[in-house]
């Protein structure tokens, strides 16, 4: 699907609830395979939707491994690089690191990977909480247009987008319906 085609259409549905579940199930398998199990893993979602995706990944991993890695939230707001540029202060969200991350493998989860700036901020936030063995990044959607050298380890779906398009992730837990929509540029 090219940018051109996307531009010609209005809003397009790129993932429905079933597609999201399948993608998360595959990512769960990949996490287990790559880490040879989930003993030392902690899953931290970037609020709001990254946190709910983290909970879903936890459930998917538990279904496979019969083991439940701890889940928490890492709020990158106070570490953003645009605080003194933006006109409005973004509201603070949930910061909840359930166990020490020292020596553990952190799976950081976000809904959409775009410029990479949120991930950079979240990495800095995490470093203030300890020294993890490693940090891996999982994202439901990778929409391209990176501005920093950031790469996801696990991707639910690569969706090529125009720079001005918006990618909306809706999750049943918050929005009543689970879907991913690419909204055409205004």
């Amino acid at each position: 699907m090219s940018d051109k085609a996307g531009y010609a259409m209005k809003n397009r549905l790129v993932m429905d609830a079933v597609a999201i579940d399948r993608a998360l199930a595959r990512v769960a398998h990949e996490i287990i395979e790559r880490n040879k199990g989930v003993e030392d893993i902690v899953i931290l979602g970037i609020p709001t939707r990254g946190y709910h995706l983290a909970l879903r990944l936890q459930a998917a991993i538990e279904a496979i491994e019969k083991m439940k890695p701890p889940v928490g939230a890492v709020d990158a707001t106070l570490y953003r690089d645009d605080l003194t540029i933006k006109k409005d202060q973004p509201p603070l969200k949930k910061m909840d690191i359930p166990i020490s991350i020292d020596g553990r493998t952190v799976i950081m989860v976000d809904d959409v990977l775009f410029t990479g700036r949120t991930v950079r901020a979240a990495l800095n936030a995490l470093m203030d909480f300890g020294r993890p063995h490693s940090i891996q990044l999982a994202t439901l959607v990778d929409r391209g247009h990176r501005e920093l050298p950031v790469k996801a380890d696990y991707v639910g779906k690569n969706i090529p987008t125009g720079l001005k398009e918006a990618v909306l992730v809706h999750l049943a837990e918050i929005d009543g319906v689970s879907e991913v929509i690419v909204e055409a540029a205004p």
Partner: protein
Amino acid sequence: MRLKRKDLLGIEDLTKDELEILISTAASFREVSEREIKKVPTLRGKTIINLFYEPSTRTRTSFEIAAKRMSADAVNISTSSSSVVKGETLKDTAKNLEAMRPDCIVIRHSSAGAPLMLSRYVGCSVVNAGDGSHEHPSQALLDILTVKDKKGGVEGLNVAIVGDIAHSRVARSNIYGFTKLGAHVTVVAPPTMMPKDIESLGCAATYDMPAALKDADIIMMLRLQLERQKESFFPSVREYSRLYGLDAAKLKRAKKDVVIMHPGPINRGVEISSEVADGPFSLILDQVTNGVAVRMAIFYLLLGAAKEEAA
């Protein structure tokens, strides 16, 4: 979300929405102080000057810690060691400080209105840390946050504020804050310490402490400024303590789930007995903890975003 103002001078001119933004932001900031590394880079490169014309331990330290936990540079000026003793006016001090390009000045002054005056002289943000008998907004915010935590909300609660209402900036800021959020405030004081027309601020007033305690969900004791005895506001400390001090005997008449607050510093055995101050109903130290979070929120909301272009 934005506090669309340069300064925080008082609670009186805040809207309910602004109050709620400040309180909810403060609640989020508490987590930072629970960390092992109690610092976030949010206000890196910002300079905050604490300009204190009155002695203060708690408030000044609290503002300083809040600034440092946000990675701002905090500079403290107390008047005893500054040019004020050489006779410099507030205006000159302000102009000179501004020439060093701070981002915020936190001021405590014995004259009501000093922060407002300062805010007109300087382009940076000004935060009122207590001005005369006028307002002490950060104290009211931390009191509201403390009550919200304990009671789940503020609306509909009965708040009794007891003590020298006439000379208390804490009382005034709390009357504005709690009434804006829908609480019922009753001020309790001896006649000499009860300002005329205090009801015009939206609170009830009484000289009868036992009656006020009976219905109170929150009892807020004010510090008795002992130096006021020289000004004949009360005959003796003992009499004041007997009539308006809070001890275990008076507390027996209060509700079972009442909570006790005090802005500090406390005069043990005067306005509050040690038994009560250190007892299970006391939230005094929670107030202090919340103070840091509230001041972090104030800095974040005043300094966190880009300066609005002058219209």
